[in-house]
């Protein structure tokens, strides 16, 4: 039976993981490769490196970060943040990324999804959708959630699938950082509408939040960052909790 995936997200700025890190025994607290190694040992199913570097010249550090993480990690690695062109995607893939995550660029230039799917295969193309509720409609936001994308999240997810996306990374802006739980209503709405996997993100605070998003939220995978970074919970104990609730996981 296909396992539900637990994905850890590393927010990286200028080659260092940001969002406080609280692991004991790390040589350098913010070193992405060190953190990736730790997560891998704990049994994480996949990693996402999200580059939040502000300036273009500092972005060169990203390829070095990907290379360092990919060198010894043999699980899927996705890279997102600021991938706007085919060349940006190629740089990430050449450095060792298995998947690239498109957000703002996919919405402003949807043909980029198809271009990359044709070049690398759909399995290599994640479309990230940041959404928040406006009445009964889940609206897409871009530029780190600051700008309305004038699209309905469910419709956009369907279009992204049609254009060749292999997975949807769905972040609830309403829940992000709140630790009150994933937006199961949003996740289920998108998951029902597409046949490609949906990764839920935003709002993880407790182990039961993951149970909820895999059951009523119909998520195929769940992504979290700080809940793991701060060592509030380990990936392994989360998976054991899920297994106890009858959710298939890789242990």
């Amino acid at each position, binding site marked *: *039976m*296909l*396992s*539900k*995936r637990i994905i850890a997200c590393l927010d990286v700025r200028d080659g260092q993981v940001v969002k406080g890190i609280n692991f004991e025994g790390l040589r350098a607290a913010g070193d992405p490769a060190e953190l990736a190694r730790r997560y*891998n040992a704990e049994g994480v*199913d996949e990693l996402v490196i999200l580059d939040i570097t502000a300036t273009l010249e500092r972005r060169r550090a990203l390829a070095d970060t990907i290379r360092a993480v*990919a*060198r*010894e990690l*043999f*699980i*899927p690695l996705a890279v997102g943040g600021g991938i706007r062109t085919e060349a940006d995607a190629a740089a990430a*893939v*050449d450095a*060792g990324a*298995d998947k690239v995550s498109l957000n703002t660029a996919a919405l402003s230039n949807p043909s980029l999804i198809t271009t990359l799917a044709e070049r*690398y*295969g*759909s*399995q*290599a193309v994640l479309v990230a959708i940041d959404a928040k509720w406006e009445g009964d409609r889940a609206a897409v936001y871009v530029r780190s959630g600051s700008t309305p994308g004038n699209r309905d999240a469910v419709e956009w997810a369907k279009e992204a699938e049609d254009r060749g996306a*292999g*997975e949807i990374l769905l972040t609830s802006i309403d829940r992000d950082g709140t630790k009150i739980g994933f937006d199961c209503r949003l996740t289920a709405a998108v*998951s*029902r509408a597409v*046949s*490609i*996997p949906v990764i839920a993100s935003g709002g993880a605070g407790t182990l039961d939040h993951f149970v909820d998003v895999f059951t009523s939220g*119909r998520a*195929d*995978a769940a992504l979290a960052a700080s809940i793991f970074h701060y060592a509030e919970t380990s990936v392994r104990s989360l998976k054991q909790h899920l297994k106890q609730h009858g959710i298939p996981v*890789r242990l």
Partner: protein
Amino acid sequence: MIALIDYKAGNLTSVRKAFAALGAELFTPERPGELDSADAIVVPGVGHFGATRALGPDWIEAILGRVGELRPLLGICLGMQWLFEGSEEAPDLPGLGLLSGQCYKLRGAPHGVNEAVKIPHVGWNSLEIQREGSIVDGVANGAQVYFTHSFVAPVTGDTVAITTHGEPFASIVQRGHVAGVQFHPEKSGDVGLQVLRNFLSMVG
């Protein structure tokens, strides 16, 4: 030297990297004639079966020639499907024909019936080992590996392990020194590395 066939079906960085971690350097032949010096051949690949069209008659002849000399061959994902006679994904295009059977699309289930079965099949799923084979030495029954595909190879006498996603399909095949894996050993953690190590043992 082990030849890694690049027919532009996906990026090969990860495959090369995983073999390098096991101490094996791969070379990418530019022409079929360069396979003469290959001790073994790896055919990777993701995506559409039609991509194997790039491996024309001269490539097929060179690969079958090495296989005839008992050089080990490993097909990964699309590369495994190519070992079979063909695929309904590209009906006009024959496969290598080393293993009998046609590849076909996972049926999945319509929405509302069983929404857990989505196509493509993406993620970690378990290996149900059916019989012994050097390619699964040291791999525990039930071990999980990473898949990403929509088409599958049929379960036949060459099947070493099956995996179930709505229906059972062949996830590991082996006939003598020809082996194939539907999952991505380069992305499947320690289990995947063990499978690659087993292949390297076949190379000797």
